[in-house]
């Protein structure tokens, strides 16, 4: 994007210095996770603390993978976050399309209901969900953490805001005149037009599902954990070796950091677009 004419001035050295300071603060805890994960546990209990990498990274990652169950946790979380992202994108796109471009009764009531539900915290549903899960004998099954997060009110609102502007109503009408069914309109017009927003929503939902904490910690045990549940086990002293704990934290974060390195620009754009419309 070329800088617009008249856009605020070039940043001075002070601006860069402050930005660099905050960037260092943002990245340092992550870098230090890797530093601590590459050391002997005993080294972490000495002053001064290590500031550079040691040579134990491989061993500690291996221990975290097997002893702290991070291997299974990573597999489970990939499955859960992938399913949630797919479901959210699909369901929220069609619902967002209906709210953006179709006419039906109760539309405005339903839309305000959707926006209103964005405020309800997960704490309000854990007790009944837990009772239902216990009744069904679903303890430790992955569907218990997938199903409650498979749709999101934010997603519906996000897709609606995007489609209101990006999807020309004449396009739909033209297809209608030619006798296209609603599903055909969705498949051949809505999905292609919505693709950029769907990609952003998919990435945001994936990150959110990957980091989902409260309900998984209650619903799952260390027998069949997601990454966050396994890390919680580590934090509560499941493994006493702090270097292995850091290796676990690193393993559980690396996939998302990799995604950020690859799609950072798109994710940043998505958050900023969501902000202006929302």
């Amino acid at each position, binding site marked *: 994007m070329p800088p617009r*004419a008249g856009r605020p*001035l*070039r*940043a001075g050295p002070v601006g860069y210095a*402050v*930005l660099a300071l905050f960037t260092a603060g*943002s990245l340092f*805890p*992550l870098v*230090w*996770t890797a530093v*601590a994960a590459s050391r002997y546990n005993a080294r972490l209990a000495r002053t001064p*603390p290590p500031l550079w990498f040691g040579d134990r990274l491989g061993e500690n990652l291996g221990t975290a993978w097997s002893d702290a169950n991070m291997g299974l946790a990573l597999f489970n979380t990939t499955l859960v976050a992938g399913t949630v992202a797919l479901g959210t994108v699909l369901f929220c796109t069609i619902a967002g*399309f*209906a*709210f953006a471009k*179709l*006419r*039906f009764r109760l539309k405005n009531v339903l839309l305000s209901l959707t926006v209103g539900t964005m405020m*309800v*915290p997960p*704490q*309000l549903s*854990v*007790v*009944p969900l*837990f*009772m239902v899960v216990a*009744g069904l004998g679903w303890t430790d099954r992955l569907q218990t953490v997938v199903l409650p997060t498979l*749709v999101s009110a934010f997603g519906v609102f996000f897709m609606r805001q995007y489609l209101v502007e990006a999807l*020309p109503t004449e396009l739909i009408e033209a*297809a209608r005149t*030619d*006798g*296209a069914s*609603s599903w055909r309109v969705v498949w*051949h017009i809505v999905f292609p*037009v919505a693709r950029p927003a769907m990609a952003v929503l998919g990435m945001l939902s994936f990150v959110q599902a990957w980091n989902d*904490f*409260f309900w998984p910690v*209650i619903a799952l045990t260390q027998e069949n954990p997601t*990454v*966050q549940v396994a*890390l919680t086990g580590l*934090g*509560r002293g499941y493994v006493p070796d*702090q270097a292995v704990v850091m290796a*676990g934290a*690193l393993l559980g*974060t690396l996939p*998302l*950091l990799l995604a*950020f390195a690859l799609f*950072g620009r798109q*994710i*940043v754009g998505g*958050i*900023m677009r969501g*902000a*202006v419309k929302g």
Partner: protein
Amino acid sequence: MTATTTAVEGAEAGPAGRDRDRPAAWRSRLYRWDLRYSPYAFVAPFFAFFAAFGLFPLLYTGWASLHRVELTAPDRMVWVGAHNYLRLLDNDFFWNALRNTVTIGVLSTVPQLLMALGLAHLLHYRLRAATFWRVALLTPYATSVAAATLVFVLLYGRDYGLVNWALGTLGVGPVDWQNGTWSSRCAVSSIVIWRWTGYNALIYLAAMQAVPDELYESAALDGASRGRQFLHITVPALRPTILFTVVVSTIGATQLFGEPLLFGGAGGQKGGASHQFQTLGLYLYEQGWFYYHLGRASAVAWSMFLLLLLVAAVNVLIARRLRKDR
């Protein structure tokens, strides 16, 4: 726009060809049904899931809060009326958790949003490697609560932590970040601040980019300094966005759970040795899953909900006041 054009052509060629040989009456009836009912089909999956996993649990939590329910036998419910709520009002730990939630909420939200505003201002300058700065500042957002807290626990270690070592070289400390009353609250807040400042900065940046450049140009012509431009043009233009982030951050603060849980180590649900950073979320978890009182946990959940409604009402009032001022 190219994707759009090809899509229309595909849609025009497809259905017209294949459906032509069907009986016309049947087709037009189908077409009318489709037109009338497909909107409902499109929103149905969302509302089905919302009803099952949002609305039903919300109401059922309210119902359960009026009963005695034990975790060990969740299907046996004994009606106790308002008993659970009365016990909460009478319980020091509940009030403690409520106070801590508000305190840590303020400690984490206010500096976070102020720093985010400043950062957004810097990001709005013409920068080299603009994308790099934005992505780098957003990386904490990619880090989960659990991973972040585990690292901060080590960094804040009393004896061997990096923070105390750094403070020591300046001649300060050592600070007991885990057991101190205010130090532990600050430490927990700092984790929240670390994770969310960059995210909020991007939201402010998006809003700043929507402010018309002419406003700045004419202010610059009038001789207003950068600082004055920020205070008198940027901040007023950002009011709705600031209100939005305040609401979202407040909702997040009310639910604060993972950070204090893991910061507390093995007995994390207590929120520290003297419950000094036990939030309402932790108190709910402790009541339900450590003392097995699901009914009381439900009452805590509904208290949180009422608190949120109160916060929302205050925000609406403030928003209205702001609009009147203009």
